[in-house]
C-alpha cells in the first residue's frame, strides 16, 4: 500500500514539475504574444520551458533519494534519468532551431564575442549538454576509469544546470512576471535542497553512518563476506543497525568524503540479523580488493538501503529466484529473511554458474531447505563429466519443469539476478511462458 502511495506521489510530482511551467507560462506570458511575437518564437519559449522542467527532474533522479530508489528501483531511476536527459537534448535542439527560425537575425546570438550574456550562457549550457550526451553514449568507447567518467559527468551536468539558470535569469523574460519568478524560485530551491542532500548532507552524515568491520569471512578464493556492525562509542551509544528489506543494496565507502570512491553492494544477510549486516563480494576490482584487505575494526561508511528488488514490496504466493554467480547474494538475503520469518510458502531457486566452484552457499542453502519449502535446481554451464544435474542454458523446458501449472505460476513473483546475458535469456523465456510482466523483478543495471 505504501509502495503504491509512494509511486503515485512521485508520479504526481514528476507530472507537476513537467507541466506547471508549461501551463502557467502561456497564461501569464499571453499578452506578450500580441507583441508581434511569432508562433515559432512562442513555441521556442515553450520548448525551452519544458526542457527546464525536465532538467529539474533529471537532476533529482540520481540523487540517492531512498524513497525514489525504493519506488522505482535503481534500474528504473537510471533508465528515467537517461530517457529524460535525451529528451532534454531534443527539446534544447528544437528550442535553438525555433529561435533562429523565428528570426534569422538571431544567428548573431551564436557570436560568442558579441552575444549578450544570456546567449553566452545558453551556448555554454548547450555545448555542455552535448558533451554530456556524447560522454554518455560513448561511455564504453571512452577508456576512462569509472571515477574519472563520473566526475566529468557531474561537472558537465553542473555546468548545464548553472548556465541554464543564468540563461533564464539574464534573459529577464519570463522571470519578470511575479508568478513565474515564484515558480522558478520554487524549482531552484527544490533542486538546491536535493543537491545539498546528495553532496553535502550524505557525505557529512557519513560520520553517523559509520560502521566497522566485524569480520571478513572467505567463501571461495575470490569471494568473501564482509560483516559490518555499527560503530558504538559513547557519543553514538544505542545506534541502530541498518534497517533494510531483503534484496536491497547500499553504497560502501572507506572514507567520509565526497571525493572518496564508493560502490553499491547487495546486502546478503537476513533483515533480522540484529546489529550485523553482511555483504558478499567478489574481489575482482580495485575497490573490492581494498575491501578484502580491511581488518576487523576498520571503518566503513554505508549509504543505504536502496532499491526495489525486494520481496517485501509485493504480495505473492511464492518466489522463483534465478541467480547467476554472485547474483545469489540478494537471494540469500531473501532466503535467510524468509527462514527467520518461518515462511511456509513454496519457493524455487535456480542457481546458474560456470563450474561447481562458482556455486556459492551450497551448504547453507541445503540447511535452509530444511527450514523452508524450497526447491533448488543447480545448473552448470561447463559441467564436469561426473555432473548429473542440469547443464547448458536456461530454457523453457527447464523452467516449465521447475514451475507449477500455468495458473499457479502466474501467481508467483520472479526475481532475476545475474550476468546480463542470463537475465536477458531468462526474460525471453518468461515472456514465452506468458508470465505477467509486473511479476518479474530485475535489478540489472549499469551506473554509467
Amino acid at each position, binding site marked *: 500500500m505504501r509502495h503504491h502511495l509512494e509511486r503515485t506521489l512521485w508520479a504526481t510530482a*514528476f507530472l507537476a514539475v*513537467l*507541466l506547471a511551467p*508549461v501551463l502557467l507560462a502561456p*497564461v501569464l506570458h499571453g*499578452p506578450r*504574444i*500580441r507583441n*508581434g511575437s*511569432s*508562433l*515559432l518564437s512562442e513555441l521556442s*519559449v*515553450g520548448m525551452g520551458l*519544458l526542457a527546464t522542467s525536465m532538467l529539474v527532474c533529471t537532476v533529482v533522479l540520481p540523487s540517492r533519494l531512498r524513497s525514489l530508489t525504493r519506488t*522505482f528501483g535503481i*534500474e*528504473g531511476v537510471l533508465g*528515467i534519468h537517461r*530517457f*529524460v536527459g535525451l*529528451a532534454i537534448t*531534443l*527539446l534544447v535542439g528544437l528550442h535553438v*532551431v*525555433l529561435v533562429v527560425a523565428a*528570426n*534569422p*537575425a*538571431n544567428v*548573431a546570438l551564436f557570436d560568442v564575442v558579441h552575444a*549578450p550574456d544570456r546567449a553566452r550562457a545558453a551556448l555554454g549550457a548547450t555545448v555542455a549538454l552535448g558533451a554530456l550526451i556524447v560522454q554518455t553514449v560513448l561511455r564504453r568507447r571512452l577508456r576512462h576509469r*569509472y571515477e574519472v567518467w563520473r566526475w566529468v559527468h557531474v561537472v558537465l551536468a553542473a555546468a548545464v544546470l548553472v548556465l541554464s539558470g543564468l540563461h533564464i535569469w539574464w534573459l*529577464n523574460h519570463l522571470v519578470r512576471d511575479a508568478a513565474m519568478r515564484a515558480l522558478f524560485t520554487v524549482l531552484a530551491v527544490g533542486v538546491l535542497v536535493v543537491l545539498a542532500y546528495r553532496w553535502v548532507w550524505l557525505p557529512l552524515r557519513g560520520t553517523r553512518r559509520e560502521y566497522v568491520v566485524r569480520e571478513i569471512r572467505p567463501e571461495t578464493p575470490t569471494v568473501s563476506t564482509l560483516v559490518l556492525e555499527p560503530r558504538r562509542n559513547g557519543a553514538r551509544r544505542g545506534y541502530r543497525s541498518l534497517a533494510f528489506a531483503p534484496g536491497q*543494496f547500499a553504497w560502501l565507502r572507506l572514507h567520509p568524503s565526497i571525493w572518496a570512491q564508493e560502490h553499491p553492494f*547487495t546486502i546478503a544477510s537476513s533483515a533480522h540479523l540484529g546489529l550485523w549486516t553482511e555483504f558478499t563480494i*567478489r574481489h575482482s*576490482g580495485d575497490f573490492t580488493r581494498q575491501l578484502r584487505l580491511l581488518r576487523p575494526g576498520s571503518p566503513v561508511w554505508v549509504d543505504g538501503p536502496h532499491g526495489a528488488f525486494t520481496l517485501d514490496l509485493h504480495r505473492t504466493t511464492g518466489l522463483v529466484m534465478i541467480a*547467476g*554467480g*554472485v*547474483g545469489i*547474494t540478494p537471494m540469500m538475503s531473501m532466503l535467510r529473511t524468509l527462514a527467520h520469518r518461518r515462511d511456509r510458502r513454496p519457493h524455487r531457486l535456480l542457481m546458474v*554458474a*560456470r563450474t561447481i566452484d562458482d556455486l556459492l552457499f551450497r551448504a547453507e542453502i541445503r540447511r535452509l531447505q530444511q527450514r523452508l519449502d524450497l526447491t533448488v535446481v543447480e545448473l552448470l554451464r561447463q559441467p564436469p563429466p561426473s555432473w548429473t544435474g542440469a547443464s547448458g542454458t536456461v530454457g523453457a523446458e527447464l523452467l516449465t519443469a521447475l514451475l507449477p501449472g500455468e495458473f499457479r505460476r502466474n501467481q508467483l513473483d520472479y526475481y532475476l*539476478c*545475474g*550476468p*546480463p*546475458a542470463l*537475465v*536477458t*535469456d531468462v*526474460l*525471453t523465456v518468461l*515472456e514465452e511462458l506468458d508470465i505477467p*510482466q509486473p511479476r*518479474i523483478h530485475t535489478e540489472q543495471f*549499469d551506473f*554509467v
Partner: protein
Amino acid sequence: MRSPVPRFVRWAVALAVIVALTVTVFQYWATSQYGTASAYHNPQGTGWTQTQWGPLGPADRDLLVMIRQADLCGGSSGRQAQQQGNSVGVRTIAKRIGADNGDLDNQIRSVAGKLGVPLPDQPTVAQQSWLRELSGRSGPDFDRTFAQRLRVTDGEVLPVITSVRAGTRNELIRSFAATAAVLINRHMEYLERTGLVDYSRLPEPLPPAESVPPASQQQHIDQVVNAAAAPPPGSTGGNDVTALVAALIMIAALLVALGLLGTAGRRVRQAGGVRQTNGPQHRGSSRRPPQRRHAAQRW
C-alpha cells in the same frame, strides 16, 4: 521485453510536449484572432484588429515595438554620454536627446496603452551589443562611437517610421509616427552637428524599389518590413499557417524521436543477449567483462 523506463514516464513526457504545444498554439491563435481587449476581430485579415482609431495591423504594432526599443537604446546611451561624454558638445546633445526620449517614451506608452499593444523592456540584441561596446570606450573614442552608433540606429528606424506613416490605416499610429519622425530627424541632426559622424560608414541607401532596410542590420527590422508589406485587411496572411505547419512537423518529429528513445533500452537489452561482454555491469557477473572498470560495481 521490458523497458527500464516506466510507461508512465514515457506518457508523461509525451503528454508534457503535447500540452506545451497545444497551450502555446491555442494561446497564440486566441490572441492573434481576438487581439486587444478594446478591439474586435476582423475576420478578413490575419493579425488585423479594429480599434476606435481604425484598423491596427502587424506593421503598426511592430512600429511601436521598434520605436520603443530604439528609444530605450537612445535613452540608455544618452544617459551614458551625459556622464562619460568627452566633449561639452556631446554631453549637451546627449542631454537634449535624453529629454526627447523622455517625451517619446511617454507618448509611446500612451499610444500603446490605448491600442493594447504590450511593449518590450529591453533594446534589441544588436542595440544591447553596441551599448556594451560603448561602455568599454572613453575619451574621444567614446564620443565618436556614441555619435556613429546612435546615428546608424536612427537611420535604420526612420525609413520604417515613414513607411508605416505613409500606409497605416490607424489614425493614432499615423499621428504618432509623424511625431516620432520629427524627433528622430532632430536627433540625427544633433548627432551630425557634432562632426563626429563618419558618413562613409553609414549603411548605403537602397534604390527606391528596394528602399527597405536590410534584414540583418537590426533584429526586428525584418519583421517590421515584412509586416509593412503584409496584406491589408481583406486579404489572407499565410505566414502563420506556414509557421504552424512547420511547427507541427517538428513536434511530430520530436514525438517520434521520444518514442524511439523509449524503445532504445529494449533494443540494447536484446542485443545484450547476443554480445554478452557488452552488457551492463552486474552484481551477479561471474566473470569480469573487459569494460567493467568503466562502471560502478555491484556484485
